């Protein structure tokens, strides 16, 4: 077989695998948009559900998901970045380090329903937060911590050692070096980790089912100790638990969930680009 032919075959296979990834994604999104766009109205987005959720809007579920995502990020980001800084900048690479790394990798592989059970046991029952936004956000934070730690670690490792050396050689302390040189340079990568985390936190159903979500709660949560509705769980309910649910509401809910995740992605991407520009300046 000659080289050109091999080249063509390799190119075709790789193009095919790329299409295999892109086409279903586009189809799924396209399908949901097509089926759901008709449902989206001002009322659907801002009104309380009525008549066993078959009419009215999904406002409490949207607000619940927003609160959950923000709460999750508020817990997971500082904790995750802090752990990553410790692991890359301070920890000596001994047995303990390897054990911690192994634990993080394993955590990333734990099924989300197990996190839900853990959250139920620890936050809801043992710590007495009850079924609440707080318990849900903490549980989701545990779920996305491995993602954020791993991404932040990679980002920190990619900061050239020569920057650290230059800073330390100028008489800066280690913490000053991390603050002024290492973190700014690692920020785009850390934000990428946060983006991935947000995507997961917004879309997970099992953990919130056990820790926060209400089946039907036509009012907004007043505090972090309140139960709340949330989009993924609401989607599950309207799709399987309520008889005679109009088809378009299901797709409407799915589309709103996609939209919210999309908006978070867009914000995070904008932050990422801003940090990248700052690094170049």
């Amino acid at each position, binding site marked *: 077989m000659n080289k050109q032919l091999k080249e063509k075959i390799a190119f075709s296979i790789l193009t095919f695998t790329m299409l295999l990834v892109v086409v279903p994604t586009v189809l799924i999104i396209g399908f949901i948009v097509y089926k759901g766009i008709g449902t989206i109205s001002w009322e659907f987005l801002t009104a309380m559900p009525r008549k066993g959720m078959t009419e009215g809007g999904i406002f409490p579920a949207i607000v619940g998901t927003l609160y959950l995502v923000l709460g999750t990020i508020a817990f997971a980001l500082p904790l995750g970045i802090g752990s990553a800084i410790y692991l890359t900048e301070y920890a*000596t*690479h001994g047995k303990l380090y390897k054990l911690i790394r192994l634990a993080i990798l394993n955590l990333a592989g734990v099924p989300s329903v197990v996190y839900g059970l853990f959250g139920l046991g620890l936050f809801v029952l043992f710590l007495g937060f009850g079924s609440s936004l707080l318990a849900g956000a903490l549980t989701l934070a545990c779920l996305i911590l491995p993602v954020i730690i791993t991404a932040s670690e990679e980002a920190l490792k990619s900061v*050239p050692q*020569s*920057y*650290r*050396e*230059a*800073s*330390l*050689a*100028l*008489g*800066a*302390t280690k913490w*000053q070096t991390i603050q*002024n*040189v290492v973190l700014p*340079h690692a920020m785009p990568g850390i934000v990428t980790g946060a983006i991935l985390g947000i995507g997961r936190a917004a879309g997970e159903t099992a953990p919130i089912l056990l820790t926060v979500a209400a089946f039907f709660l036509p009012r907004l949560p007043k505090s972090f100790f309140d139960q709340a509705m949330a989009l993924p769980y609401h989607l599950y309910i309207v799709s399987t638990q309520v008889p005679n649910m109009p088809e378009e509401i299901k797709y409407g809910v799915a589309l709103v969930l996609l939209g919210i995740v999309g908006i978070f992605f867009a914000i995070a991407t904008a932050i990422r680009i801003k940090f990248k520009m700052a*690094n*170049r*300046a």
Partner: protein
Amino acid sequence: MAKISVKDLNLYYGDFQALNNIDLKIEEKKVTALIGPSGCGKSTFLRTLNRMNDLIDHVKTEGCLCLEDQDIYDGDVDVVALRRRVGMVFQKPNPFPKSIYENVAYGPKRYGMKDKKQLDEIVERSLKEAALWEEVKDRLNKSALGLSGGQQQRLCIARALAMKPEVLLMDEPTSALDPIATAKIEELIMNLKENYTIVIVTHSMQQAARISDNTAFFLMGDLIETDKTQKLFTTPRDKRTEDYITGRFG
């Protein structure tokens, strides 16, 4: 007068001994060149002088290194304070991805200086000392990464000078630069020795001969010979030094 005196210095990377019983005095306001083939320990030695080797795991340093009358490796030495007295310039120019101004002001700011006027003065003085002021004075707020390699290296020198160090360590500062940029840095070094004690590691024997007052020749972790540069290059006492400087190996 000896600015830095080193006695019985031994350094180990784990089980491997990288420096053996080094004795060396570094004269104040002179240029001391460290020469020798790759892997001879000259960079390792340089990095003991501001304790940059502390950053590497499993490094053990024994012996006496004194900066004037202070033992550098004494348990209660403030490494941060030491590095303000002993500045360093690296092999590859490594400006921060910040503006030219912010690069020079980096050290003083970390030291706690906030006064804008004082900082402006330091930036101007340091850039002038590093012979870079005229080239960059109109674009202090532009990124340092837009400078040429030679300019970047002079910026790194300015950045180190901003801390008013007493000693300036240079680890092959011109090895990544073209001959013209190299000539500028060499000229700069000869001017700087009026005010600073300079220790420079170099691969180029011509460079050592051109700019240094004293030269120390390292081989396989041993300090073979040290003398006035002129003397070491014309009448070396040790056969190995002679072989090296006449290009028979290395």
